[in-house]
């Protein structure tokens, strides 16, 4: 039998023709018992046409915008690309993101959490009753690779850190924050970031001013060393390492082309209404 895909084989990239092959057989299987008078080929062509039209009509504008954007260079002075509308919670494991997720979406902390493997999706309602998607990203190191994708649709980022253990973890914290701040999405779309210093009700917590200046110092070091590591192997990602802030001067959060705001509080404390976070989100989305 001369299946239609054999005719397109070679014309298309092998991956695509593989997909066509798979679906061809599946459609064939589905249609066989009906004994239709027309061959599967024609049905497939018809289905495919409808599908293509559908995809074009629904994705048309967005796909064209994304293709144009990937060609524009990632420069901090250039005009930022359009942000998404998601409120994304990120930060190291144990910072309190999942608990914050519930406080923001359901105004409750009556919940027990364990370390997250996957993201949590929910809805955040602003004071003006606008509904925004709320995403709680897992903080475990092993899930780091999924972060760029999670951040890609962010409109604002709430970076949660544990102020009560900050001094023991400052290097790790700085590395992680560096990854967030230099991620493609944040850098190109100028996504505002709120750094929320959580668990402040604990004795011995570091205040947000100290945290801010320690992070600035560590980020200053990091942008020197990260820029100098041998290039990553693999052609698809030989992008230039993004330089954080202004070259030649010590790093300051103020130098970034997007807002980075510090706030501190306690998610677990019922009386803490987290006003800063609410205002921050409302201001930017």
């Amino acid at each position, binding site marked *: 039998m001369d299946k239609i895909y054999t005719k397109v084989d070679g014309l298309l990239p092998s991956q695509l023709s593989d997909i066509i092959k798979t679906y061809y057989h599946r459609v064939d299987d589905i249609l066989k018992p009906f004994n239709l008078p027309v061959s599967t080929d024609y049905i497939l062509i018809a289905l495919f046409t409808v599908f293509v039209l559908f995809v074009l009509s629904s994705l048309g504008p967005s796909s064209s915008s994304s293709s144009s954007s990937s060609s524009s260079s990632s420069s901090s002075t250039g005009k930022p690309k359009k942000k998404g509308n998601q409120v994304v919670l990120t930060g190291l494991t144990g910072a309190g993101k999942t608990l914050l997720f519930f406080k923001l979406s359901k105004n409750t902390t009556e919940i027990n959490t364990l370390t997250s*493997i996957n993201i949590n999706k929910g809805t955040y309602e602003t004071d003006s009753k606008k509904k925004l998607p709320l995403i709680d990203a897992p903080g475990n190191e092993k899930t780091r690779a999924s972060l760029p994708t999670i951040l890609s649709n962010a409109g604002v980022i709430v970076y949660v850190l544990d102020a009560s253990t900050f001094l023991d973890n400052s290097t790790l914290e700085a590395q992680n924050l560096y990854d967030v701040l230099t991620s493609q999405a944040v850098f190109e779309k100028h996504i505002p970031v709120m750094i929320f210093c959580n668990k402040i009700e604990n004795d011995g917590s570091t205040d947000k001013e100290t945290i801010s200046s320690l992070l600035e110092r560590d980020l200053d070091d990091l942008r020197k060393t990260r820029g100098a590591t041998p290039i990553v192997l693999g052609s698809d990602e030989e992008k230039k390492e993004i330089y954080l802030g202004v070259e030649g001067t010590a790093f300051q959060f103020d130098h970034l082309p997007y807002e980075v705001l510090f706030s501190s509080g306690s998610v677990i404390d019922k009386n803490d209404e987290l006003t800063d976070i609410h205002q921050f989100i409302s201001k930017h989305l």
Partner: protein
Amino acid sequence: MLDNFTIVTKGGIVLWSMEWAKLKGSPINKMIKKVLLEERSADSSYNTDNYSLKWTFANEFDLIFIAVYQKIFTLMYIDELLLAVKKRFVKMYKDMLVAIKNSADSIELESFKEFDFEVILEEVEMRSKLQQTSISTPKRYEDTTKGKLGKETKREKEMKLGTYEKNKKKEDAKREKKLKRQQDRKARQQEDYSDTDSGSEDDYSEQEENSDTSSNNSKEDNIDENNKENNTKGTTGADDQEDPEITKRRQALIANMKKSPMSKKKSVADKEKNTPEKPKSKKEARKWEGGELTKSEKEALNKSEKSAKKEIVRETIVKHNIDMEVSSDEEDKPASGFMKYFNVLTGNRVITKQDLEPILNDFKTHLTKKNVALDIAEKLVESVGTGLTGKKLSTFQGVTSVVKQTMEEVVTRILTPKRNIDILKDVQNVKGKRPYTIVFSGVNGVGKSTNLAKVCYWLTANGFKVMLAACDTFRSGAIEQLRTHAERLNVQVFERGYGKDAASIAGDAINYAKETGHDVVLIDTTGRMQNNEPLMKALSKLVNQNAADLVLFVGEALVGNDGVDQLTKFDQSLSLIADSTRAERRTIDGIILTKFDTIDDKVGAAISMVYSTGIPIVFLGTGQNYTDLKRMNIKSVVKSLLT
């Protein structure tokens, strides 16, 4: 004993949890981090501190069911319990679980409070106990000397305190409630299976008899608890220890019964034969429901003949097997005919073990072709399998593509290091105080000296003053090789000739570097086989005596299974001669995988090494030039591995 049972989403939200004893530390979080996030879910249990943990997934809803119990107890029924609870929970809350999966904030914790876990636990526990007693002489707790003693002391104490009557009433009330709940549940199950189970009437009464035994069990539990309270420990768990002989015989028995096609009929027949010996279950049951179970009646039940008891027990096992068959039918029932096509179209198809098996096998072969060690390839596909069984396919999604995508995620997670090694920053941190020392270790000819030179080039380019230490005092030409590199790179070599003790040369080199204001000392070592214990000890001495800052293992990307063996042995041997100043065991900090330019897409060694040890790959050696030192791009390695 069971200490904790938790039902949690993969997002980390605890939906339901029960605690019998407060957990010390956080064993569940530890398990998630050490096992699930490291893609070791092919393992079936995890031990930490005093706990053992077992778990199962409901992948359709992204749920994890976790049981935590004391390591010292061998609880035979945990696997069964996990499955039973999963089945019940998923059935009871299906709609809500779908909603939660789509939007975690649609969760209403209140609704999970009514989950009848205890009933399931009791049932499973009872089954397990009955299966034990069925082969050995029926061993009721009260009948054992210990049990009697326990019971008597308990009574005595209660009499003294004048609480006996009160407690008894409480116990009775509790039992009634339990019975009632159990019966409700039975009734519900009855509805579910009524069309598949012809002997439903008989089963119904049979189950009630079981409830009686189970209420005896619950009394035992109470005693146990009481004993604990009174600090007369020691009677607990006596029943949990099982004779291996018994296990064997029981398994044989169960296997026999499974084989026999008559088993079900037989159970019904046995049943009829036995009914006269026992109280008319159905009527009795009504009476119990009314709460009129008197003490004498209870005693009559307890005194029932040994043989009769055995029969009941056998029936229970048979019934149990039927039960399981029904349930597995329900779960894995392959959709047939038109429904199958419909399911493909609407995306309602659930991935089954049978779907996965051939695909996973193909993947395993593929991985081994890419040079992944065989046992690791096996573990990987198993881990992917456990993560996918029961998941729903979306419209027109093929199982193969889902497996591939999951495989991608799994391998990415494996290769993602837990800690970023930032050598430049670490060097910077100690600069001016002391030289930073890096040891290059590995077997012969893998590229230790060459890649040491590349690292030297890179550090020099970043403005650090680097010195090489020629501690390969064995292979002829090694020192000359290093000298050549040093000349080209315009750095200093510290050498003491051949045949000397490498550890003390390294020490001298570090001291010298400190005096001369060098920032970094790169220590070249003799290549050695991982099985050569004297030489491995010497390496350990070199590393520990000089408190090296970073120990790198240099390995060839071409190695097959031996790579893992090399790496693990090198890693372990570093603690042969311990460094008392370090609290933690000395380990290999990172890997340099060399000759990456010669392997095309056979990148398997990278996965094998990282998976088996968790040690990150710091650099890849990609050629003979000084600039051929690269950071690994996880994405492209994953791509090479899976295409």
